[in-house]
């Protein structure tokens, strides 16, 4: 949660020079895509984590790699919410906006809390940049920013001065601006500079001059905060560490957590991992991460297209490895036919969808949850497939393991849903002990399983799963494919009774997973009452915080967050019916709401947002108030 910087005197934990500290602060760094804002944000995040604050981040960048400098559409932003209390979202409205140029100010200032602080680099507020940002007059001079506090000074010039001794060219020298700004931010929040200095030395190990220049800029920014005779808005704050469970922590993004979870899942299954991928935003990071983990028995394959990526993964699964493929909506659409093949041949496969705004190419770098129908229903024929949805970056680790477990235990492809927000955002993560997860080792068929030494690839176990048979095993030769088959032998069989039996078997197997997953719990609140907010995926943070605030005000509202989106937990229908009202906030036009209505005939109401931005807590709080009015 976020609070106004100067309004909460309680929790003052710093020394006498420090300003009263709020519980939580939201800072947004915004600049040109070439200004290194994501890097600045990432390093500030690390420093925040090392200071023991809880945090959540929201990187928000354009699809263009290098959009023309100074333009409105070229603005890249990184928002971080951190504090001494539990943080679940990247914060509604920033308390501090660092604007590296006029375009960054223009596109971000609207979000800034009234009374919030703007730090602007006057060096970039020149005529050309003002024109590019469509300002007639500099907003720093025309009074249009009066509802905020403005701290404007020439960061560009101060940076050039700081790095002068290193003899860099003007362009290179100005690149150190982000470190100067980071230095100032570190001072503002009473942070240790040493980890950043170590990081810069490592990053520029091959160019020590650049390391020294960046360190000098960082120190200069810090010193500026410390020594400049600034009256007014610039104050130093110290936020006490958040109370967290004891243990070892690190920060993790969703893409990292998915990668590690897949590796863990394969290990728990006792299998090597095969990952077939094709570059697509925002899913590529998983392929990047796994490509570096070859010692874990990971093979990564950058295929010629999305279809080849999944087809290769199915080939690897047929060969006895755990096949995984990953993409985002448009790529998932291309994989649809091959998913059907994995369903038909009943082979384990994990398909990760890092959702983005759609349809078509849509919003490549923005987040949305609009691929739920695609995940649950989006294939030809009756093609049931389990769907697991991660609610946060760290949760993606466990969800990836769960997807692997379902895939191998039920011999089925499984869809794991994350989204652009989860994939890119970072949060503190209590490093899990891999040994604490129950292994689910795979047993391959080694001997004929039918009468008279016959091989029956489609004989089923109690769960309805068929045996996994590796080519290369003597005496178990068999042929399978995407064509309808005999319920036992797997030979081509179009007979009416066979198709009926196989359709039923495929459906029953997936429906039966409901008995093999945890029952649905109430994340916050009670089973039964006036109102339940039912979410899935990355809306967890804002829903959770909004429900918490509403409950503090005495409202009868509970939060239910569903991980197993298909099949749904066995008790979910009864649970939903125990509330007078059910509200489903989601970043689409009401897809999960429709699933719930269809499955349980409950009068679930939608709360939808499709702006490419996550829900704010306030938006959901308002919806709770309206529902209970």
């Amino acid at each position: 949660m976020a609070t106004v910087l100067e309004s909460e005197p309680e929790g003052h934990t710093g020394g006498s020079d420090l300003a009263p500290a709020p519980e939580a602060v939201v800072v947004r760094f915004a600049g040109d895509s070439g200004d290194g804002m994501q890097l600045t944000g990432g390093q500030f995040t690390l420093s925040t984590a090392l200071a023991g604050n809880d945090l959540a981040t929201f990187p928000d960048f354009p699809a263009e790699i290098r959009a023309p400098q100074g333009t409105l559409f070229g603005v890249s932003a990184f928002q971080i919410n951190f504090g001494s209390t539990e943080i679940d979202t990247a914060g509604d409205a920033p308390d501090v906006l660092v604007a590296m140029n006029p375009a960054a100010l223009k596109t971000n200032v609207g979000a800034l809390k009234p009374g919030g602080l703007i730090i602007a680099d006057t060096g970039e507020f020149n005529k050309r940049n003002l024109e590019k940002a469509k300002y007639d007059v500099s907003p720093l001079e025309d009074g249009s920013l009066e509802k905020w506090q403005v701290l404007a000074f020439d960061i560009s010039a101060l940076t050039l001065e700081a790095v002068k001794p290193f003899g860099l060219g003007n362009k290179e020298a100005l690149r150190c601006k982000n470190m100067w700004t980071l230095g100032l931010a570190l001072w503002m929040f009473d942070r240790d500079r040493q980890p950043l200095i170590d990081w810069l030395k490592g990053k520029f190990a091959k160019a020590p001059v650049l390391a020294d220049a960046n360190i000098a800029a960082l120190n200069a920014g810090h010193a500026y905060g410390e020594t400049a005779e600034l009256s007014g808005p610039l104050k130093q704050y110290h936020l006490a560490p958040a109370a967290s469970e004891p243990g070892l922590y690190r920060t993790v993004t969703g893409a990292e957590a998915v990668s590690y979870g897949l590796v863990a899942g394969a290990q728990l299954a006792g299998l090597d991992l095969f990952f077939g991928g094709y570059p697509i935003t925002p899913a590529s990071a998983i392929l990047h991460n796994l490509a570096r983990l070859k010692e874990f028995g990971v093979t990564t394959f950058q295929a010629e297209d999305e279809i080849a990526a999944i087809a290769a993964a199915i080939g690897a699964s047929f060969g006895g490895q755990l096949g995984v493929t990953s993409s985002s909506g448009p790529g998932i659409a291309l994989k649809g036919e091959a998913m059907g093949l994995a369903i038909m041949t009943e082979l384990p496969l994990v398909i990760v969808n890092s959702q983005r705004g759609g349809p078509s190419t849509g919003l490549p770098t923005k987040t949305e949850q609009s691929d739920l129908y695609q995940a649950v229903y989006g294939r030809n024929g009756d093609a049931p497939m389990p769907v697991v949805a991660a609610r946060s970056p760290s949760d993606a680790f466990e969800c990836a393991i769960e997807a692997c477990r379902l895939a191998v235990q039920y011999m089925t492809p499984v869809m794991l849903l994350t989204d652009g927000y989860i994939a890119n955002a970072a949060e503190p993560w209590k490093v899990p002990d891999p040994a604490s997860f129950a292994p689910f080792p795979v047993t391959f068929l080694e001997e004929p399983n039918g009468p008279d030494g016959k091989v029956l690839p489609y004989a089923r176990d109690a769960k309805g799963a068929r045996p996994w048979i590796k080519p290369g095993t003597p005496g178990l030769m068999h042929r399978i494919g995407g064509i309808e088959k005999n319920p036992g032998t797997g030979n081509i069989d179009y007979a009416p009774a066979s198709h009926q039996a196989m359709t039923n078997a495929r459906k029953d197997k997936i429906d039966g997973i409901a008995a093999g997953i945890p029952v649905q719990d109430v994340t916050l609140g009670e089973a039964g009452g006036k109102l339940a907010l039912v979410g899935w995926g990355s809306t967890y943070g804002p829903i959770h915080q909004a429900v918490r605030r509403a409950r503090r005000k005495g409202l009868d509202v509970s939060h239910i967050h569903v991980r197993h989106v298909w099949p749904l937990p066995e008790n979910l229908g009864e649970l939903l019916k125990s509330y007078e009202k059910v509200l489903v906030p989601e970043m689409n036009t009401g897809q999960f709401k429709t699933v719930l209505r269809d499955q349980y005939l409950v009068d679930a109401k939608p709360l939808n947002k499709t702006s490419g931005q996550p829900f704010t807590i306030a938006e959901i709080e308002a919806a709770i108030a309206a529902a209970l009015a």
Partner: protein
Amino acid sequence: MNEMTKIAVQTSLKDWETDQEVRWCPGCGDYAILKAVQRTLPEIGADPAKTVFVSGIGCSSRFPYYVESYGFHTIHGRAPAFVTGLKLANPELDVWLVTGDGDGMSIGGNHTMHVLRRNLNTQILLFNNEIYGLTKGQYSPTSRLGTVSPTTPLGSVDRPASPCAFALGAGGRFIARAYDVSKELPSVLKAAHAHQGAAFVEIFQNCIVYNKDVFADFTEKANAATGQLWLTDGEPMLFNKGTQGIALDVETLSLKVVAVVDGDWQAAGVRVHDVKNRAMAHLLVEMPFGPFPMALGVIYDDPRPTFEAAVIEERTRAAAGKTANLAKLLSKGQTWTVE
């Protein structure tokens, strides 16, 4: 082929037949190809347990159901991608990929290109009948100009692709041609199997229902002598019972047919076939039938390291000296401890 399958396993043709009823049209060229494959497998000492036949969609793609080995009938055009994953998961497997002109050159053209470029160690048999059979007779990407079909009632107007030229252009290191009922087909298959890497074999196949006898100009007995140029490494490129041969016009860098008098092919300037000559291979796959005979047999065979060998080598190198300690991996980087 690979190291494991070099250990010959004793089988007979019968051992490679499944209990499944073969469902091609009576008289289809696919029957002859199936028999040729089933005859070849015992001769190369193939092990049914380590052999996998993989196909896409189309008449040709029913093939795996009829071979007593492991088999996978994938989806339209995607067999090369499936095979890539399968071979990376288990390089010990001896994988045959069966495809057709629609499956491999149209919907799956992209994958055909990449499996060749990567040089995956597999045998690719492309049955070319210049028509879509399973969907009832539409023209295909290899159909000749003017082909009348349900979708081209006035004749097709797009120019056909040449599978062997495509395969060579994509970086293929083994290119061969044969036809369904040829008695030479097993020897071509053997050569393909012996090649380490992606071995591309175009097999002209007679679709007796939708494109009957479209290759008769060179496959019919009466036309064989003038219509077929069988290539053998180290042998002169002769046809028509040694009375004609293929020579190189060095001025125009093109091939020409020359008459051979009294068997003196050297005097006529006939070239000796060299399977490692890539430039000549380009000329041979592009050699137009009509003015020239059809080039058959092993056109090009010059192996280089396979994709899976490179992947394994890199994986081994990257993993050397590292342990797969997940707990350590998770706690990597900058961490902090909450007391």
